[in-house]
């Protein structure tokens, strides 16, 4: 176990360092003059020179890459072009909103998806099972931005039940929560379907196992068997995908934040791209990747903890 943790941790660090290297050199890897892309073709030479110097693009490439990596490791992601504020501070303001959004979506997906999957698996081939099956495919395939737009349209505009834009104030938790419902649901829909499907499949497999038959033979209650013994075993593959899920939610958050006009990391990057403010984009991408790698690491480790049969040196397909 210890060796496995060490190995996974090492892999994560390598991936993060490579990401840093990639983001640092991306400006140079891509053909064309980055300053021209950033400022547009009609920028004055003086402005171009200023931006070039500010981004450090006038220095030799290895120096630039090295500086970005060293500064990045110290938490310095450069400065915003427009306001001169440190990028890390802007991200610090935006990130809590995104994390809250992603976590509440994940929570919502688990709260709805897992019971649906359990019900389907314990009542196979009933009409509810079939309906759940159909609904989950539909949920999985519906792009989150389409879900977001339709929810906004129905509940925010047509029925006017829930606030359509902004986040409300964190000092007023009830208001903040009301603002969170639509975006979190939009983001959760894919994962509700996905979890329902996954739990159903793995639970069906577990329910066929000998120890479940024995438990029934001993006369244990259905609920106890399903939720305590069977689900505990069936949930393992689900935990493994939650890491990937967190990444998808972080990626999908950008659509939700744009549609519902919420502040957040995705929105910050979106605005930065429109303003051609590359340092913010780069910093935002880096932070997202860090979170994603961390979530995956956490999921992998808990997966390993839940199911010790998975060997440390296992070939990863």
């Amino acid at each position: 176990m210890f060796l496995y943790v060490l190995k996974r941790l090492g892999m994560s660090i390598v991936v993060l360092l490579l990401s840093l290297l990639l983001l640092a050199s991306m400006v140079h890897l891509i053909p064309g003059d980055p300053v021209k892309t950033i400022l547009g073709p009609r920028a004055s030479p003086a402005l171009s020179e200023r931006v070039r110097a500010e981004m450090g693009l006038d220095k030799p490439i290895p120096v630039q890459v090295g500086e970005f990596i060293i500064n990045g490791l110290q938490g310095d992601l450069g400065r915003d072009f427009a306001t001169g504020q440190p990028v890390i501070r802007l991200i610090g303001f935006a990130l809590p909103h995104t994390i809250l959004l992603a976590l509440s979506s994940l929570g919502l997906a688990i709260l709805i998806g897992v019971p649906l999957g359990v019900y389907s698996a314990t009542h196979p081939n009933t009409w509810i099972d079939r309906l759940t099956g159909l609904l989950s495919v539909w949920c999985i395939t519906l792009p989150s931005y389409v879900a977001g737009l339709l929810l906004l349209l129905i509940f925010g505009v047509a029925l006017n039940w829930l606030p359509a834009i902004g986040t409300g104030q964190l000092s007023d938790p009830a208001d903040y929560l009301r603002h969170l419902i639509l975006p979190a649901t939009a983001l959760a829909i894919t994962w509700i379907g996905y979890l329902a499907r996954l739990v159903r499949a793995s639970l069906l497999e577990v329910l066929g196992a000998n120890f479940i038959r024995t438990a029934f033979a001993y006369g244990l209650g259905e609920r106890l068997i399903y939720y305590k013994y069977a689900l505990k075993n069936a949930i393992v593959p689900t935990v493994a995908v939650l890491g990937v899920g967190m990444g998808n939610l972080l990626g999908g958050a950008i659509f939700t934040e744009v549609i519902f006009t919420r502040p957040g990391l995705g929105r910050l990057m979106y605005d930065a791209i429109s303003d051609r403010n590359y340092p913010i984009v780069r910093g935002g991408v880096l932070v997202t990747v860090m979170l994603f790698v961390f979530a995956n690491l956490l999921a992998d480790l808990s997966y390993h903890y839940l199911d010790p049969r998975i060997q440390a040196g296992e070939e990863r397909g």
Partner: protein
Amino acid sequence: MNGPVIAGRARRNGLALLRSLVRKPAGLFGLLIVAALLTAALGADWVAPYGEAQQDIAHRLEAPSIRHLLGTDHLGRDVLSRLIYGTRVALGAAVPAVLGAALIGLVLGMLAGYLGGWVDNVVLVVMDTIQSYPTVILALALLALLGPSLQNVIVVIVVGFTPGYARVVRAQVLAIKHSPFVEVERALGASDLRLTLIHILPNILAPLLILLAMDLPSAITTEAGLSFLGLGVRPPTPSWGVTLSEGFAKLRTSPWPVVFAGLALGSTTLGFTLFSETLRDLLDPKLAGTRRA
């Protein structure tokens, strides 16, 4: 794994496969959607009631009517016609992107699986790094520098989707590499090139094709999503994402462009997914029930 039998069976019994696909409701529904989409893309000039850019300024942002079945957008363009022409953008981005990713993934995966050693390690680490980016975020990072265009969206999707193929191919090659029929060929003196191209390749095509079909809806969604954010295809190209984004700006005046573009996207991804999942279950029962995140 299950390769040799399936590859042969699929080739010989294309028609039988189609017949069993149609017999399943999900497969039939998927097939109908895919067929409708192809018809719309190929025959847009005949099927669409108006031109993609044809304006009817007097009737802007109108609700569905006999004249404009799905209403009009903010420039008075027919939404139905824009959506029909949009199939060309959706498929025109998704098909080359997925094919490109499959091809590059195939080459990388075969090299990694067959050669092993440091080649395998390098390929794995690079693929791991790419996969540590959520697709949208990777696209964002690249498009911020490349600038928005259809070609760049295709490039971004290729980069994001390649690792999936490389991994599947690598795993398949590893599974087949030491199977008796390959060992026998090697003992008979077959070269590496012959072994990989004539003996291993045909056996990994079936899972590759399934993955390809399953990736198409994701690629369509990615293109439309990036175009919605203004990072992909630019207006006035009738991408579904562009229609969504233009409709979003006028949402409170007229919801129809958003509603119908959303429905087009939703039913396309649903149709393609049902089609490819049924196909997968038929081609490879062992994979039934599995799904990629």
